[in-house]
């Protein structure tokens, strides 16, 4: 790969940087273990289910008028972030778009704080100042939460740049959708990531927002070909397929091999946002059927392997529902921000 030749950053195994910054120092990998548990099949099911039930509840609160503005649900895509979180090391960074609630939970954010942010309350993750699209959990390696389509791709490339600069072995996983893949700054980021062999994995969550025949015809996985960036299409509805592809790409990045594009073939079961009923989506076109649901697939696998019985799964569901119910209750009851918060956090 020609890009490998001019790679002053990746060539340095260890930066002379004066240690970790305050965010990295605040980093606490233990908060991730709550979400991923032992990383086994049941834990993955539980993680995906938490996101599913959380998003269903968010949809409900939106309908009740408790959540304002935009609310982009992740229902149907859960296997992508859960599989990538399992593939990554706890110290790796995640960054994504406004469709971020699942990523937040996967990075260990407290469901109560996430839901309370969506209702605009003082107990929200951003103190009620960010909203559904603007939340961050740097202590879990999560850097937002970006409302401008594809903005996170350049910023994620910068996180990876910092990793290479420090030589700290961290990898950034930058998520974006098939719509964002057409943004100019994605190409700019690919150029720089390839040129400097940055430790980053570009995860395109292809939920096929647009009919395929409106695209270029070439797979999104091939978008990096001109820059020498390898890509692969992955079954984004299968959490273990995602994990496996993610592990390969993250390993490559960590070893100095540079960026990889993973095109996750997934499906969003709801509209673009709660304001969008999604009626344009594949009208007359067959959905892939209930078996494409990543949760159903994981559930069938667990039962087939005899890892748990129906009763166990029911009890997991009850436990998750209770947790989400608690989050919703908190988000509805928590007071709005103090008026004194209006002009804080503008400058340090």
């Amino acid at each position: 790969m020609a890009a490998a030749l001019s790679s002053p950053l990746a060539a340095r195994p260890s930066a002379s940087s004066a240690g970790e910054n305050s965010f990295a120092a605040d980093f606490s990998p233990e908060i991730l273990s709550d979400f991923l548990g032992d990383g086994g099949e049941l834990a993955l099911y539980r993680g995906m289910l938490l996101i599913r039930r959380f998003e269903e509840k968010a949809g409900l609160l939106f309908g009740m008028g408790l959540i304002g503005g935009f609310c982009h649900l992740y229902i149907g895509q859960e296997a992508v972030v859960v599989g990538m979180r399992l593939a990554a090391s706890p110290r790796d960074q995640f960054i994504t778009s406004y469709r971020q609630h699942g990523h937040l939970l996967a990075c260990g954010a407290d469901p109560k704080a996430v839901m309370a942010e969506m209702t605009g309350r003082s107990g929200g993750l951003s103190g009620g100042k960010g909203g559904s699209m603007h939340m961050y959990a740097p202590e879990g390696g999560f850097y937002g939460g970006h409302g401008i389509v594809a903005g996170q791709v350049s910023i994620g490339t910068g996180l990876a740049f910092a990793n290479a600069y420090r030589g700290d072995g961290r990898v950034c996983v930058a998520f974006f959708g098939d719509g964002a893949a057409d943004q100019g700054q994605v190409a700019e980021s690919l150029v720089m990531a390839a040129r400097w062999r940055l430790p980053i994995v570009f995860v395109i969550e292809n939920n096929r927002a647009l009919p395929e025949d409106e695209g270029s015809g070439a797979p999104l996985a091939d978008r990096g070909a001109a820059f020498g960036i390898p890509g692969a299409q992955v079954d984004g509805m299968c959490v273990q397929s995602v994990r496996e592809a993610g592990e390969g790409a993250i390993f490559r990045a960590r070893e100095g091999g540079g960026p990889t594009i993973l095109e996750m073939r997934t499906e969003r079961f709801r509209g673009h946002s709660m304001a969008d009923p999604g009626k344009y989506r594949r009208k007359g076109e067959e959905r892939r059927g209930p078996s494409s649901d990543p949760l159903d697939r994981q559930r069938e696998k667990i039962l087939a392997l005899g890892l748990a019985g129906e009763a166990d799964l029911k009890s997991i569901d009850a436990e998750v529902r209770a947790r989400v119910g608690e989050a919703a209750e908190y988000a509805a009851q928590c007071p709005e921000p103090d008026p004194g918060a209006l002009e804080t956090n503008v400058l340090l």
Partner: protein
Amino acid sequence: MATHVLMPALSPEMKFGKLTKWLKREGDFVEAGDILAEIETEKATMEVEAVETGVLERILTPEGTDNVAVDSPIALIEPAAPGPAPAAVSVEPPLPDEPTILARVPAGSPVLAQAPQPRDATRKITVREALREALAEEMRRDPDVFVLGEEVGDAQGASRVTHGLFQEFGARRVVDTPIAEHGFAGLGVGAAMAGLKPVIEFMSFNFALQAVDHIVNSAAKTLYMSGGAVHCPIVFRGPNGARARVGAQHAQDFSAWFAHIPGLKVVAPYSAADAKGLLKAAIRDPNPVIFLEHEHLYSQSFPAPDDPDHLVEIGLARVCRAGGDATVIAFSHGVGLALAAADILAGEGIEVEVVDLRTLRPLDMPTILRSVRKTGRCAIVEEGWPQGGVGAEICARIVEEAFDDLDAPVRRVTGRDIPMPYAANLEKMALPQTADVVATVRALL
């Protein structure tokens, strides 16, 4: 009679240049049209040709000398028949306490200003050198500081502000980017969120329009949107505003644009000391800082302290000339116009107080109001367009907070409300001139 070879100008506005290399030696026979030497500015390099045939009798400016004034003699040619050079060229005795290499430079040559001086003494340096020193000192001080932009590295910087940094700090910390402003501005924001201290150079702030999304939506708003959880300690710097004869897409003043944005600090220094102290402060600042330089100031020399800890606090204006009759508020290149106007008006018995804003956001309103309350008359100078400009904002605040102290309406001297024209005469008309400041102050009285 020996003929002086004069330092040529590469452009009408060029005042100084660097003599990079002599291609002939003293005693060489040269014919008219022979290449004698190479000179360069931040913009271009050029060859100096012999204007007449003769012997290159004396080289007055050694190669490697920077800040050689245009039209100053750099060599002597003795018209003569071809022949062997004199065995020795008599030189004047070295000046006391001056390095020998400078001894042959005529007194008064700018190169004398470069003579070593005691540490911590105030030297005279150009704004470009001040900026370069600030970068180098902060990079030595903090390993998290790095410079990134187009041609900042091996090419030594399009405006030569990063000259020599690549040699000292290497490609890891002086990073050449592809021509991708949107992408590399976002990359810088990400690196800052990860705790590094990026200094992102725009070759011109006109190109920052490609990146304005990340400056505003990502850098400026994240601290607020995250409820204080995510910081973005980044500096975006580069030349802003007018530049001679480059037309409308390369000569816009964006001061008001960035000064409009909460979450940013915006700095626009005039002098070398402020350029250095403010850039160092900007790099150490935990917030995103827009650092607006000016093409016409890069080569101007000012006294500047030698102290590596010379910092200028962001947010403080400076009264750089005291006077009681009228206040002229300016920033960046406009301060030079204001000071020149004040000199002229002083000849008429009008004492102008000149306030150099230095920082455009946050504005130092106490200093502005103190001066306006003293003089009762105020003009604001800026290169940018009038509508929604820095002057418009200051005028509004003066009216809100010091209306009763005014003895005349606040007036603005701004760039004309048009895209920048190319033709030299029109370009001059489009930009504020000293005469405009003089006329405006007279109108206040």
